[in-house]
């Protein structure tokens, strides 16, 4: 018997809201031996621009690092020990449009894990010495990623492409911005953004639905953290200029043997009716062995590393292709990739193609969500990206409803104009200036 406070049962997912406005989505997996507890917030790098004076780039990520630093009941060491006793895989991530704290635990420990989470979520403490030590850890993390040329090529291309929008800075922030964040700033940001009315709790795995619902109500209903003092949704990502076809090139030479190049462009966001058809197009372009990039770039031996990236946001999505090559082959691979994009733009989408890709996406998705932890993270991400709960069978229905015409339209709209930002680092070929070939429609 489901309680009267439930306002939606969507296929296997039960969604309800507590009086303190905390939303909870539960998906029980019959016979599941593990469970994921994930608390996601409308907070992340996109929200930072609207907060405080001066640069606070990286503050969401710093909050994430400080999250596990103890409560009045438990010291940091005790928090770590308590989760360790459960065999928990404890982690968190900060993205542009949301932040998630999560733990995967054996199902038998879900109740104890929920108690620990409640303590962490409602009794956060920021100790000055721990804050200072953790800032050092974050500065190290920034430098760690700086040592990775493939990561750098991808993030810099995106940041340059979205210059002038809230997507222009890195999630981690910079050495200077992180150094300038004070404990008070962190406290204020944390109080404003990491609130129950700004959050969704997702639990997926082996548990009894009714019992779990009862436990969560008993545990969280009396908990109040401060009401939201921030807009629920991040500021819109509005591109600087109307979309027109051009290539903007940035580079940074480094003493490395190889060249690392990323091409970044924008596509429609999740608020666009053509968003789901776009997923079909994405699967066609990269990354599996059936994809165009694999068949025409990797399989043909142009490079061993050529990855397609797609990060959707509500207003806009960021698409990218990153490749690594010797400097002698950089220009040729870049031109080949442009040829392939032209080929995609000019092709006629067929029903056979759409059907094949629909099967691939669904098979791939089932593989992905076999592990309740992956399913829980996927549901959390979808909640923030699509701004609604979206369980597997709803996704299947959505996927099956995509028509050939939809994909054709999505493709035409996405590639009608190609505003491309190219970023290269490492051993960059001299005098290389990326440009569209004469045959390009752009």
């Amino acid at each position: 018997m489901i309680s009267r406070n439930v306002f939606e049962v969507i296929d296997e997912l039960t969604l309800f809201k507590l009086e303190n406005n905390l939303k909870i989505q539960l998906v029980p997996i019959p016979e599941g031996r593990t469970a994921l507890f994930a608390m996601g917030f409308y907070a992340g790098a996109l929200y930072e621009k609207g907060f405080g004076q001066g640069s606070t780039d990286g503050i969401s990520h710093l909050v994430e690092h400080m999250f596990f630093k103890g409560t009045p009941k438990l010291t940091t060491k005790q928090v770590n020990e308590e989760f360790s006793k459960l065999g928990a895989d404890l982690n968190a991530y900060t993205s542009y449009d949301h932040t998630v704290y999560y733990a995967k635990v054996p199902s038998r420990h879900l109740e104890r894990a929920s108690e620990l989470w409640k303590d962490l979520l409602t009794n956060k403490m920021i100790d000055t010495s721990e804050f200072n030590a953790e800032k050092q850890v974050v500065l190290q993390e920034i430098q760690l990623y700086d040592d990775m040329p493939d990561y750098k090529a991808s993030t810099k291309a995106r940041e340059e492409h979205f210059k002038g929008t809230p997507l222009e800075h890195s999630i981690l922030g910079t050495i200077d911005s992180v150094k300038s964040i004070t404990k008070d700033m962190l406290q204020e940001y944390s109080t404003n953004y990491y609130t129950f009315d700004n959050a969704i709790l997702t639990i997926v795995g082996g548990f009894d639905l009714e019992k779990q619902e009862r436990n969560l109500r008993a545990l969280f209903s009396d908990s109040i953290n401060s009401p939201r003092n921030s807009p629920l949704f991040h500021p819109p990502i509005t591109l600087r200029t109307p979309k027109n076809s051009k290539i903007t090139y940035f580079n940074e030479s480094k003493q490395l043997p190889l060249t690392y190049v990323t091409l970044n462009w924008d596509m429609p966001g999740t608020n666009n009716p053509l968003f789901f058809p776009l997923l079909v197009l994405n699967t066609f372009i990269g990354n599996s062995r059936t994809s165009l990039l694999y068949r025409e770039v990797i399989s043909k031996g142009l490079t061993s590393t050529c990855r397609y990236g797609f990060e959707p946001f509500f207003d806009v999505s960021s698409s990218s292709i990153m490749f690594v090559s010797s400097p002698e082959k950089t220009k040729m691979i870049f031109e080949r990739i442009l040829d392939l994009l032209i080929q995609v733009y000019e092709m006629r989408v067929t029903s056979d193609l759409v059907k094949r890709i629909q099967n691939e996406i669904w098979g791939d998705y089932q593989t992905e969500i076999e592990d309740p932890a992956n399913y829980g993270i996927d549901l959390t991400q979808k909640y923030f990206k699509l701004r609604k709960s979206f369980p597997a069978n709803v996704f299947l229905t959505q996927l099956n409803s995509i028509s050939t015409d939809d994909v054709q339209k999505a493709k035409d709209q996405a590639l009608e104009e190609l505003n491309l930002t190219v970023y290269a680092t490492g051993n960059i070929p001299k005098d290389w200036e990326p440009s569209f070939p004469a045959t390009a429609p752009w």
Partner: protein
Amino acid sequence: MQGCIIKSFPNLRTCTLGIVNYHGSAHDTVPGSTQVLLQTLTRGSKNYSEQEIANIIDGTGGSLFSATEKTFSFLGARIQPKFVLKSLDLLIDILTSPNLDPENIEIEKQNLIQVYDQINAHPLRKMLLMEADKAIFGPDHPFGRMVIGNPESLGKIDAQIMKETHSKLIVEPWGLAVGNFPREFRDELIKAFEENFLCLEKKKTEKLKIPSPKLTKNHIITSPINPNGNVYLCLNLTTDVTKKSISLARFSSSVLGESFGSRMFSELREKRGLGYLVGSSLNLVDKFLTIRCYLETSPNRVIEALEALLKIIFDLGLNKIPIKEFRTTRDFILGNLDLSFDNSQMIMSRILNRQIYGLSPNLDESYREIKDVTPKGILDWWKTFRDNGNLSCAVVGNFDENELIGKWESLLNDL
């Protein structure tokens, strides 16, 4: 036939199939040839073209994967349950009757040369994949080199070498299948394994011998690269593998650096803020077991990091683990063992590793092994380790080589 292991779990959505052969990179006469071969196998076989392989596996949302380890290799697929029999047929076909087209061999060879260069330019990956084993086994021993070889050795690979490598690949083969198999289907799967393995039996060859490595005590190797970056440090504790030592080492590795509650995490990251990446892992190669403890830190704190890490490690051989910490670690490992049970590939990987190292493939046994560990057992093992084990160190990144090597020697003397 060495047999097959079929495990059914009712909660799984996928199946993972695998075929193991006791031929790995350490058997390569030309380093990297097994890895090139495994990559080339997926380029087509007698009955399946490359495109058909992609359509059968990837086109249905599955994935084909291969792994070259030092002493064995592995070819597998994670697929939807309804494609199991077809996938098994495909795996056997590409393993026994590959096309080995010279053009594809050249492409895979060039791909691996690029992968080598990418690892070499990435200090963290260089430390873990290239330098750590070199520090333990020496650069000239087959265990000390990377499974993918190096640009020079890869450059020598041609169709003839591939043919020879393929003729030595199928050694004591055995199969694995993990998924949600109803009883009647399990019988069908066993039959399919038996029939398909007859093809493997015909191609079977003798296991090659690998000379024993001579481990050098307190060996340090340094690779200064990336003058503006960080330092990446890996301490390796290597000793002989025995059935009992695996659980003792697993336990020790957890105490050292496998969780947020571990000693390395608490001391190096939480307390001192020395680095973001802090951790330890247990690695098994043939008859050797290594606990790897690694961290990344800034250039001006590398000596502090090295000293602190050495103290943490040495303490395990000096003092018994306090009972509270012992229980927390045991609960962590036991709970953590459960976490792989919702993923067919992870379950298969655990069974595979247990079988390779002579442990029972029954995963329930892994719980018992951990429950049998005692604080005294760990201390005694570490005392033995102090006399017979080997410590080595690999450092990659931005640091003063002379200062570091000098400090390494003086720290070991002091400790």
